[in-house]
């Protein structure tokens, strides 16, 4: 147990809380699942209480919810046009989920849901799946024009189309890797510097005096992590809007 205190990876371990095994599959309810549920409850409760006492002059909570709405609505309108507003529930839910998950992860002893690539990958696949399904539904085979840039010589066409398709398929990976890597790296750095504080302070007075430096670093990193938590939720939402724009207007 002593090694766990300074092990920076230990915080990402999954523990089954309610073990469920069906047909050889491990479907246990883990700490990750618990925190996903907590994230959904916190996000829903925030929006519920923020909008339950609606007033013309908004309270602080209400103006926060209105800001979140305006923020995402403007982002979606700017990048995908007014037609994009039909995807508002999707983008807003994704943004709130990622934001609340990132912010909750910053509490000590809390599990960061978005630090596992499978979670972020599932979110990214949801986005790309929506783009592909909606794109084909709306435009049929014209959706494939997305992969053919204008004014390409016929000789280069097969090569360019192959590269464009790989580039398109790499989107869910880059979307998920970015969010996951940011959260993972941030939490590991934070844990390493906090670990320095603990280990250094074991060396008497000089150690405690020296531990001030990593402590200051940990404080600064915590502030940075709050910024990153917001920024990554923002980036995720912006890219979702951009990809949805491709589904709405391919090859314009």
């Amino acid at each position, binding site marked *: 147990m002593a090694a766990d205190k300074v092990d920076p990876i230990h915080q990402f371990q999954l523990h089954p809380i309610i073990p469920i095994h069906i047909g050889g599959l491990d479907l246990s309810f883990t700490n990750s699942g618990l925190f996903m549920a907590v994230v959904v409850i916190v996000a829903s409760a925030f929006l519920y209480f923020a909008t339950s006492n609606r007033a013309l002059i908004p309270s602080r909570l209400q103006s926060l919810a209105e800001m979140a709405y305006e923020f995402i609505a403007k982002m979606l309108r700017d990048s995908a046009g007014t037609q994009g507003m039909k995807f508002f529930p999707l983008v807003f839910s994704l943004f709130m989920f990622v934001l609340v998950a990132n912010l909750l992860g910053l509490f000590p002893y809390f599990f960061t849901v978005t630090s596992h690539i499978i979670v972020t990958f599932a979110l990214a696949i949801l986005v790309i799946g929506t783009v592909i399904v909606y794109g084909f539904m709306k435009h049929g085979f014209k959706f494939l024009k997305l992969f053919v*840039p204008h004014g390409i010589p016929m000789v280069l066409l097969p090569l360019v189309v192959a590269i*464009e398709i790989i580039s398109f398929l*790499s989107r869910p990976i880059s979307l998920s890797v970015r969010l996951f*890597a940011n959260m993972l*790296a941030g939490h590991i750095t934070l844990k390493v510097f906090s670990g320095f504080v603990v280990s250094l302070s074991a060396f008497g007075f000089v150690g405690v005096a020296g531990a001030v430096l990593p402590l200051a670093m940990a404080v600064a990193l915590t502030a940075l992590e709050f910024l990153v938590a917001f*920024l990554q939720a923002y*980036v995720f939402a912006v890219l979702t809007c951009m990809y949805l724009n491709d589904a709405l207007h391919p090859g314009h």
Partner: protein
Amino acid sequence: MTGVGTAFKVSSEFIAGIAVGVGIGWVIDRWAGTSPWGLIVFLMLGFGAAVLNVLRSVGRVAEFGQGGKPPPDSGQ
């Protein structure tokens, strides 16, 4: 955006392109038994896609399907 944010953005775009290229090549090799040619060809294409992703994410190449000129607010 912070410096580390840009670094993560660009590197994830690059890694994703190569990863998809390698993935497609590997699957084709497995199915068609053409090892190692599928991997070689799709690694190259994946590399191309990775560079395209990076250039697109910093706004130096036009977005999907737009061809010709890069977006007006490029080259910050």
